[in-house]
């Protein structure tokens, strides 16, 4: 991957700043950035599938949720370590990705979006109905954190986020990205080129789901609880807004979008009950005026000029 001098500097600066967060800010800010990086994992996961294939996966919170609830349930009811829970979460979300992918990915255009949206909405209701397993409205409380120290938790999440970013961005620049974009362009032509379209679609969805579940498990363990809010439309809107701000389809932009919006969210903390309203209005503004996003165009601008 060719990268210019300016891009390298920008990336190095960003990484340095992220590494220095616990020293630069208070314990509270470290916590904010921890959550922000989890959102970055979620956003990159969503962009990898929906941004590249152009098929809106509106059921994404489902994968987040199953990861969170799997690890939460095992921790609270069976004392399973959240470290093991991370892997169970990834496995469960992968399975769910397969289960949802097979029937829905055959569907054209808006049917897929509709079906996944319906699945997530109904699943959220199911979480309330099956309250004896899921804890209903209150969810599952008293989970064990992965590590006890806030700063160490931050570095753990930073490490996972960087690794996730490396994997997802790497895939998007490899044949996966190429083939997924081709599938977005014209599925019939892909088949005529000998590509097993169904395999790649489902595999991409499963990959996206795995990272969603991983983030979900990290989040549940960090918050030490899991609640139905994690499968809500608000979660979807937050993630998608981050991806849009980052530049849909770039995958790396999604991480940048997560950081931008998390900081914005903090600044809006004083808005109190108006926060969600501002988010929704922001999404409208982004869609109208920032379709290409902020982060990806910025990165590309830095890319113009001499290579080192």
């Amino acid at each position, binding site marked *: 991957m060719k990268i210019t001098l300016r891009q390298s500097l920008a990336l190095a600066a960003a990484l340095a700043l992220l590494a220095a967060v616990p020293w630069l800010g208070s314990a509270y800010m470290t916590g904010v950035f921890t959550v922000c990086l989890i959102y970055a994992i979620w956003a990159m996961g969503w962009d990898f599938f929906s941004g590249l294939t152009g098929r809106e996966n509106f059921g994404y919170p489902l994968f987040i949720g199953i990861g969170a609830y799997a690890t939460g349930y095992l921790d609270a009811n069976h004392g399973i370590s959240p470290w093991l829970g991370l892997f169970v979460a990834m496995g469960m979300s992968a399975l769910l990705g397969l289960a949802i992918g097979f029937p829905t990915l055959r569907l054209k255009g808006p*049917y897929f*979006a509709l079906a996944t949206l319906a699945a997530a909405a*109904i699943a959220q209701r*199911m979480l309330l*109905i099956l309250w004896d397993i899921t804890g209903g409205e209150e969810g599952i409380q008293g989970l064990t954190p992965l590590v006890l120290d806030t700063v160490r938790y931050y570095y753990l999440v930073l490490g996972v986020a960087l690794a996730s970013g490396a994997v997802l961005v790497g895939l998007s620049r490899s044949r996966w990205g190429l083939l997924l974009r081709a599938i977005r362009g014209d599925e019939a032509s892909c088949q005529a080129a000998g590509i097993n379209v169904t395999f790649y679609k489902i595999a991409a969805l499963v990959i996206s789901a795995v990272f969603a579940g991983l983030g979900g498990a990290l989040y549940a363990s960090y918050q030490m609880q899991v609640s139905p809010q994690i499968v809500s439309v608000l979660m979807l809107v937050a993630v998608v807004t981050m991806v849009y701000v980052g530049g849909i389809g770039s995958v790396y932009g999604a991480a940048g979008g997560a950081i931008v919006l998390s900081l914005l969210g903090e600044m809006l903390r004083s808005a109190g009950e108006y926060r969600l309203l501002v988010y929704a209005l922001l999404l*409208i503004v982004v869609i109208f005026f920032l379709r290409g996003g902020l982060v990806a165009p910025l990165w590309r601008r830095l890319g113009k000029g001499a290579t080192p």
Partner: protein
Amino acid sequence: MTDILVHGAVTSAIYAMLAVGFTLVFGVARILNLAHGAFYMLGAYFTYLFATLLGLPLALAALAAIAATAGLGWAVERWLIRPQRDSSMAVMMVTMAFLLVAEQVLLVTFGSEVVNVPAFADAKFSLGGADIGGQQLLTLATAVAALAVLWLLIQRTRAGAAILALSQDPLAAQYMGIPIDRVYGRVVALSAALAALAGVMAGPFLSTSPHMAMPALTKAFAIVIVGGLGSLPGSILAAILLGYAETAVAYLVSSSWTEVVSLAAVLLTLLLRPAGLRGKRAAF
């Protein structure tokens, strides 16, 4: 048994009014208007606003509520949907955002508590042993009337013919000189009016809170998936099926399991017959 028969009919009526508008918009404009649930909510809230807070006579308040929501629907099409029509993802996100804005505005203005939307009829009736409120019976009658009017509109008027033409072949319709932008605006306004009507009638006996938009939206598209996206008879059929199935489950099993009915119906449809009961355009 008569309980299920009677209450099932009322539920189906509400569902039909909700779903028909949603499917109409998709069938004609090929877009998923995720703001649809908000129109249902606004129908109820506008009625509350006009009747309870502004003191207008109920009939007037209701009409004003429907008109206001229809106008809002038209505005959403004109200023949110139309500029983004090249991207279905953008349309979905922007209409979803509108639903959230509506929800949050109402939350901030009226609080998250349930509000009392005044009913047209407070009387209680007994139909063959089943207890039913006057408002619920009125809802059923209104739904039937509204759908009949809609059918007449589409089959017998020029505006209706334009809508039909557009749903079959947008390009040909344009060549015929049909003003597609204007028709799209009218269709969204019409669907908003229907949803608002459902909200006006059902608001009094179903809980009216700022959180009613999302479940209404979910219900609408569960029905529409089962009935077939874009098929009006399909939506009505699915509304009746799901309305009765849910009512039966509520009476025979437990009311908390009603959501499972929609889930099962959606899953079955997607697995066995993705185009829905009467879907014209196959899902793949």
